[in-house]
């Protein structure tokens, strides 16, 4: 009864395939049924009633990138931590728990120092420090 060893991933592939195929298929079926009379007015972007003004490419503020940056650093950190953390109990029962504990703590404290640095230097503040600091900087995006 040795199933093919990779069968364990079959539902994953099936589900992702269904997720990807469901959208085009439903839209195609809908296209046959649905009324389709595109009109110039309907095609314009929604602007609470007024005519849309200018393109949408106002340059955004840098904060969005800082959030993504900190996210990816901590994401990679957790990716590295998962196998070590999963193995901790085994080593703990073997009596080598102290060694692993120290390794994990060093790994974590280095990165907590990074977060603390960003916090203190004001990278995590969202609005306050920018609007306060540079009143002159009108910035399209100051929400």
């Amino acid at each position, binding site marked *: 009864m040795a199933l093919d060893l990779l069968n364990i991933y079959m539902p994953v592939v099936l589900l992702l395939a269904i997720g990807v195929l469901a959208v085009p298929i439903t839209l195609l079926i809908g296209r046959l049924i649905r009324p389709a009379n595109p009109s110039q007015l309907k095609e314009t972007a929604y602007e609470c009633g007024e005519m849309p003004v200018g393109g949408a490419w106002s340059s955004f503020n*840098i904060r969005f*990138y800082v959030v993504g*940056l900190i996210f*990816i*650093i901590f*994401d*990679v950190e957790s*990716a*590295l931590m998962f196998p070590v953390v999963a193995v901790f109990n085994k080593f703990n029962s073997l009596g080598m728990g102290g060694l692993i504990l120290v390794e994990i703590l060093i790994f974590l404290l280095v990165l907590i120092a990074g977060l603390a640095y960003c916090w203190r230097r004001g990278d995590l503040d969202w609005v306050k420090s920018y609007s306060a600091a540079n009143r002159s900087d009108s910035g399209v995006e100051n929400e």
Partner: protein
Amino acid sequence: MLARKNIIAILLGIELILNASALNFVAYSKFLAGNMDGQIFSLFIIVVAAAEAAVGLAIVIRFYQINESIHIDDAAQLQG
């Protein structure tokens, strides 16, 4: 459309190369050596690639803020 040589497109290319090499390591370690070192090494390749992408994109954004375009030739002068 975007005719200029966009720096971000080059960063995309770099991601591709790092992926290709990581895949190589895993394949060789499985078929030739049969131990796990290949996988460990490609894990660290992913870590380095992520850090590199983060810093590279920060530089590109800063570059854009300074002189409004991310055209590769503008990046000629060093002091920026």
